[in-house]
């Protein structure tokens, strides 16, 4: 690796990290503001214009507060758990391409932390790892409410991880038909969603050329299942049984305070953003969109893909908030029923169906 390449890698990681942090700070504020609007309130409006610095103020406060360590904790795991929550959350976003690659001199800079050829598998691995943080935090706190939260987290994560994975598989299968062989690289999956459906089906070109070639259109059922699964994966309402203030105080983070609590909080919001980004990448075409290369100055059309990516991600993030404001928390058995009786059979059925359609299109009917 030459020096320029090294610095480009550093630049990519720093940019991705910075984008994620800024987006998270805005997310926390946006959630409070949107929830307030949905409940006829005003929301935070003291710190900065429209309260936009609220997150910074809260972060500073938590940073300077004492991190109390209760007497009965398993110290090693107790201290490790917040880090285990934060690190996978950040690593997940490193896989997401958030802008069009551009050139510095003769080196290409991909706006993506790292383009692994097994990107999707890495994301699945990291999101499974994030559950350990919750479980370990619940267990090592040495207190009954956190333990209950941790136990709930295991069951919930296992049931919804399966549905999420199956929804991803149908996307990967479909995406394999859109280019040269199958791929798990997110950059490649985004690349294959460029253009419109008009390019594929020339007969209906006049109508279809206005409909972008996003995976969400043929894979709408997978998208719905994937969305429900990521809401459950990030422990958001209505699937926030892990925290469930009304039942088990704060769930797994009951015994955490100060900066250690702030790390769990940060991880939750980073997870929301990166999971939404993955939904946008897999289903909504990532950074694809009209860039008007001829009409606009060069740097604007270079920035536009990032803007499209953020817009699509925030649509999904807004759905998170909207659903949180609307739905009450599911009971534990309802959670399990939805996961095992609806989502997993649904995802499996959809996978089989789309496999049949893809095979039919590729090889023709078996009897012919």
């Amino acid at each position, binding site marked *: 690796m030459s020096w320029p390449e090294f610095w480009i890698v550093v630049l990519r990681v720093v940019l991705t990290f910075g984008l994620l942090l800024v987006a998270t700070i805005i997310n926390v504020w946006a959630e409070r503001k949107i929830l307030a609007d949905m409940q006829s*309130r005003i929301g935070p409006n003291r710190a900065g214009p429209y309260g936009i610095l609220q997150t910074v103020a809260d972060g500073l406060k938590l940073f300077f507060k004492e991190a109390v360590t209760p007497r009965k904790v398993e110290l090693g795991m107790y201290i490790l758990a917040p880090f285990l929550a934060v690190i996978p959350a950040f690593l997940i976003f490193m896989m997401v391409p958030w802008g069009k690659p551009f050139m510095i001199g003769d080196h290409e800079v991909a706006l993506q932390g790292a383009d692994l050829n097994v990107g999707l598998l890495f994301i699945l691995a990291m999101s499974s790892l994030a559950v350990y943080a919750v479980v370990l935090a619940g267990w090592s706190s040495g207190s009954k409410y956190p333990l209950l939260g941790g136990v709930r987290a295991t069951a919930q994560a296992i049931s919804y991880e399966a549905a999420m994975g199956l929804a991803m598989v149908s996307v990967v299968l479909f995406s394999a038909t859109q280019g040269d062989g199958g791929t798990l690289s997110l950059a490649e999956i985004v690349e294959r969603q460029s253009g419109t459906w008009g390019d594929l089906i020339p007969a209906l070109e006049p109508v279809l050329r206005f409909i972008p070639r996003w995976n969400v259109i043929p894979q709408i059922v997978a998208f719905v299942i994937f969305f429900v699964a990521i809401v459950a994966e990030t422990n958001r309402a209505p699937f926030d049984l892990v925290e469930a203030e009304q039942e088990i105080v704060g769930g797994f983070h009951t015994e955490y305070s100060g900066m250690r609590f702030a790390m769990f909080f940060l991880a939750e919001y980073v997870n929301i953003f990166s999971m939404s980004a993955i939904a946008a990448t897999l289903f909504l075409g990532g950074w694809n969109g009209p860039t008007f290369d001829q009409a606009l100055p060069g740097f604007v059309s270079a920035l536009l893909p990032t803007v499209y990516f953020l817009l699509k991600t925030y649509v999904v993030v807004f759905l998170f908030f909207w659903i949180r*404001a*609307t739905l009450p928390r599911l009971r534990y058995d309802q959670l399990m029923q939805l996961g095992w009786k609806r989502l997993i059979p649904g995802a499996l059925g959809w996978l089989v169906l789309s496999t049949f359609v893809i095979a039919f299109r590729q090889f023709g009917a078996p009897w012919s």
Partner: protein
Amino acid sequence: MGLLSELIKGLRVTGGTMLRTISGKELVTTEYPKEMRGKPQRFHGRHVLNRYPDGMEKCIGCELCAGACPAKCIYVRGMDNDPAHPTSPGERYGYVYEINMLRCIFCGLCVEACPTEAITMTSLFEFSTTNRQDAIYTRDTLLMDERGNVPHMFPDDELADMDELNTADGWLRATAPAGVAAYEGIQMWQSTPGPADWAPEPTQEARDRRSTEDEPDG
């Protein structure tokens, strides 16, 4: 699909609320120190000691207010008027007048007890203090000056609204003090603190005429 349609129904409620809140139609919050809500007309706020239009104090130091006070927060001591320079039209005047605002329950019984309408209430309620001494209002703070201006404990405070102190107690405005229905609306006591700007009270002759007109039997 019942689940899904219920979900969409719920989302419409919250989404609609959000749109109505953003457009300001459903927002109920008043951002208090920035914008004030109107107060009811009979609001019981801090007390004020009134004067007659000629500048005489109304208080005659009878201590009926102190006797009526259920919280025992009023302390009055009367003193004989100097015959050459009387402070009040009566024999005595309120020489010491103190109200402990920390004990006061703002029931308004002192106002009802007062025979000369010397003590009334304004609609001012922002008078929190940082020490207990400031919560004991003395004669200097309660008594209005000859122009009808009431002293404010914290005139420099951003919440200090001097006009508010000059708003009279609604109880006086709405009731005929004589208790006779025929006299309703006739100004018999000075209901606003400070010099009067209304027509003088009707003479006894006019009053008699009015009462016989209204009550043919009498």
